[in-house]
């Protein structure tokens, strides 16, 4: 699977650099979007997985679910940092400031705080069933903020950020760009999935050695 992902990654990078035309108003900076959008998507996806696996742990008590929840959160933390940094650079290039508490920036920042809090909590607890339970409860409890982040924050703050690309109203994307974006999304999601499986295995092995 690793090799396949490697080829897909090279292909996507090639497409981004040689096929994608400069976007109106953004020029070649638009290339950054092909990193930013997929990592942001994965950051959110990992959050969903972490909460879902947390719920599964609470229901079944299987430590596999806990390892998956932890693995998703650990990777999610890396991806959310990537998304925040790439977003800030993009913001500097297009609006002239790294940070302006745009709703999307606020959302991603809160996500970053949640991931950080979850991992701190895990770090502060001795390994075992109790930690698994506490972490799962926090993953689900912090998940309550999602509707707020998605629906309320955009009303509280004025936004410059383009609307979610996929509903088509924001960035004017032509077919080529959309296709490349899809490739990038598939690629980054694939990378996440690959890392996620490896990390889950590692955490389980660590758990057994305890």
């Amino acid at each position, binding site marked *: 699977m690793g090799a396949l992902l490697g080829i897909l990654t090279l292909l996507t990078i090639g497409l981004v650099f040689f096929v994608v035309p400069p976007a109106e108003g953004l020029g070649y900076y638009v290339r950054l979007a092909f990193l930013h959008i997929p990592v942001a998507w994965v950051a959110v996806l990992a959050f969903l997985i972490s909460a879902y696996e947390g719920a599964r742990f609470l229901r079944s008590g299987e430590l596999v679910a806990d390892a998956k929840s932890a693995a998703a959160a650990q990777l999610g933390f890396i991806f959310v940092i990537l998304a925040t940094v790439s977003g800030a650079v993009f913001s500097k290039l297009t609006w002239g400031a790294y940070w302006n508490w745009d709703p999307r920036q606020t959302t991603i920042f809160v996500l970053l*705080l949640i991931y950080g809090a979850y991992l701190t909590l895990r770090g502060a607890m001795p390994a075992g069933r109790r930690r698994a339970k506490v972490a799962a409860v926090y993953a689900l409890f912090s998940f309550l903020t999602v509707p707020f982040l998605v629906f309320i924050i955009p009303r509280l703050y004025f936004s410059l950020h383009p609307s979610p690309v996929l509903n088509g109203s924001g960035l004017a994307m032509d077919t080529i760009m959309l296709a490349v974006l899809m490739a990038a999304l598939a690629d980054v999601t694939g990378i996440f999935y690959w890392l996620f499986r490896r990390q889950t295995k590692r955490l389980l092995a660590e758990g057994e050695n305890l």
Partner: protein
Amino acid sequence: MHASLWQGIKLVFGKEFTLGLRFKAAWSTMFMFALTTLACVSLALQGAPLEPELAAALLWIILFFAAMAGADRGFADEDTAGTLLTLQIYGSAQTVLWGKMLYTCFLLVCLTFFIVPLFLLLLGAEVAAGGVLAGTLLLGDVGIAAAGTLIAALTTGAQVKSGLFSVLMLPVILPVFLPAIFLTAGTLGSGQLPVHYLLGMALYDGVLLAAASVLFDYLWYED
């Protein structure tokens, strides 16, 4: 069943209250923390006028961190005293959770009554809509109590105590915190007063309470 649940909640509340009266450190830390922070801000400003937005943010930061200094010990104290096991054997999850939540909320409301008038006095702020401010403060206190009680239960077994509680609290409480700041700024005269945010806060408080109630069972029972 419901009558006995309410009896149990009253018992837990009464127990917390009695212990609070006999051992004042927990809540007096909270009150003194709030007072100290407020004094700091007021001294630093030297009577300089404060924008409503800034004043509102300051007020909520004082309230939030004072609450953090007082509300985080709910379960950890029982754990160190060894009474947590006794409580687990004799008390049911929901009575303990709601009793403790009610007590935390009561403490926070007392704190609010103590600190907000002082805050308005020292910073010379004028309140345009007292009712809205009272509602905002109450809903904010309920939210902090709801999230705080569950998170205090989470951090019981943690090896790092100080700080962890605030780290876990902040993301969860932001949906209460941000509208509360907007509304408070409004009542202090920032120009807009989006009263319908109160509804959003109440809704989110309800969600927090319900989720805390469901999730606490998992923490309280091992089977």
